[in-house]
């Protein structure tokens, strides 16, 4: 028996840590998805797919990426408790702080996304702004004409997308005080989940039929790989220490198990995987249901990890095991 009596009831700390509500999971999900968008559109530019199809989704998704990232940063901003001092993020670089890395990575991500977006100015903009975009259009066509330039933009987007995705995971996993988060594989889980959400989104809006199938197949690959990474995430936690094992059990059979199994694994991975496998094999038509479920699963993953992580703690391992 272990009984703890404390006179402390600090808000957001007691009875269990709950410093981060909906804002951080939403931010981590959007950041991960934008990372996926950057990697996928960067890869399309790198491999020259944008030449194969004028409707290549690498021209459509970056603008959406900018919008989503801005939404995510808004959520992050809403979470800050001392908002007037937000500018302090940009008067220093703290090498040991993943959040500082993230703040500076975001500064680089915007121009990289904008560079992809600038490769093709939407027809509707040209009409809306009449001749006033002429220079931009000219500039855009010149870059698009240069294989070296598009390839470089592609590589930069893949690298920055990778860094962005990795950082969303390292942000949590560097906080060793919460055993569920201190897995050295969390970043991979978030990168793969971000890739699957991005592929799902691009698949949903893709106009080119070949690319639609390609993205659906890629998404299936990401989802299957995500299941693998989940398995390795849990094997890793289970073989780290008692505190980490108990943290894993929070998801596998504890308080967060229903949310984890139903929303993250079932509705977020298994069901859309089955639907998309049938779609690519031509058994059923492509439906937006699967991509929406995948994105919902990605969001659910961040909610479950952020909440359960705050719930997990080292004290569990301190109560002596009961002899009977």
């Amino acid at each position, binding site marked *: *028996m*272990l*009984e*703890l*009596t*404390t*006179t*402390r*009831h*600090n*808000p*957001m*700390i*007691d009875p269990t*840590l709950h*410093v*981060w509500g909906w804002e951080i999971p939403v931010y981590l999900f959007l950041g991960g998805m934008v990372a996926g968008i950057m990697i996928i559109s960067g890869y399309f530019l790198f491999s020259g797919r944008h030449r194969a199809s004028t409707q290549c989704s690498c021209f459509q998704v970056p603008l959406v990426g900018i919008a989503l990232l801005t939404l995510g940063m808004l959520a992050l901003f809403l*979470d*800050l*408790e*001392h*908002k007037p*001092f*937000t500018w*302090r*993020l940009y*008067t*220093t670089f*703290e090498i*040991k*702080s*993943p*959040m*500082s890395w*993230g*703040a500076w990575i975001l500064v680089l991500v915007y121009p990289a996304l904008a560079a992809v977006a600038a490769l093709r100015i939407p027809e509707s903009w040209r009409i809306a702004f009449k001749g006033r975009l002429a220079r931009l259009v000219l500039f855009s066509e010149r870059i698009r004409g240069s294989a070296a330039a598009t390839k470089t933009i592609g590589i930069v987007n893949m690298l920055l997308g990778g860094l962005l995705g990795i950082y969303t995971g390292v*942000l949590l996993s*560097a*906080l*060793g*005080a*919460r055993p569920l988060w201190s897995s050295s594989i969390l970043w991979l889980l978030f990168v793969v989940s971000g890739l699957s959400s991005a592929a799902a989104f691009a698949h949903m809006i893709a106009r080119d039929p070949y690319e639609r199938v390609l993205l659906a197949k890629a998404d299936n690959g990401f989802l299957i790989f995500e299941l693998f990474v989940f398995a390795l995430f849990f094997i890793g936690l289970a073989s780290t*220490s008692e505190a980490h094992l108990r943290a894993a059990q929070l998801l596998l059979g504890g308080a967060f198990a229903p949310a984890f199994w139903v929303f993250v694994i079932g509705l977020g991975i298994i069901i859309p995987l089955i639907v998309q496998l049938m779609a690519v094999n031509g058994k059923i038509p492509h439906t937006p249901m699967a991509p929406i479920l995948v994105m919902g699963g990605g969001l659910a993953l961040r909610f479950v990890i952020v909440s359960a992580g*705050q719930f997990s*703690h*080292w004290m569990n391992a301190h*109560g*002596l095991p*009961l002899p009977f």
Partner: protein
Amino acid sequence: MARFAMVIDTRQCVGCMDCVVACKTENGVPEGFNRDWIVQDVNGIYPTLHMEIRSERCNHCDNPPCVYCCPTGASHVHDLGGVVLVHHEKCIGCKACLAACPYDARFVHPEGYADKCTFCIHRVEKGLQPSCVAVCPTYCMYFGDLDDPLSEVSLLLTSRKYHLLLPETGTQPHIYYLT
């Protein structure tokens, strides 16, 4: 160089909470918040129970995860005695430090910045003791410099058995509990 630490004798502490009240008064800690607190830790199986009463606070670690994760440098190690402090006007309230602390020793001040025990550095710099130590009616709390082998805290640690809180997290805490 000095390295401040606190040594607390759990065999003397009666859990009167004078240290908590003194801290709140001295530091103007807002209502509903605590920079220090009392834990009554009861272990064992009835009828053989063992109780330890502890006055807990920030451990002013040698390996402070709250300082490492801070994106603005607001959380920092003070020049004097390795005390972990927060620059209020640099803190953006991101709460990473709250999540990073295995002792849950930090909280968000109603004004928005992360707040916590300072070892009453404003008193220590004047040669006074931290307020919690100063008021303790059982004299169970000791504050001093571990870099001085003849200080009261150093001598206590060579003559008594003690334990630390969550040493396995690698923080290297600096509150020692005599047992």
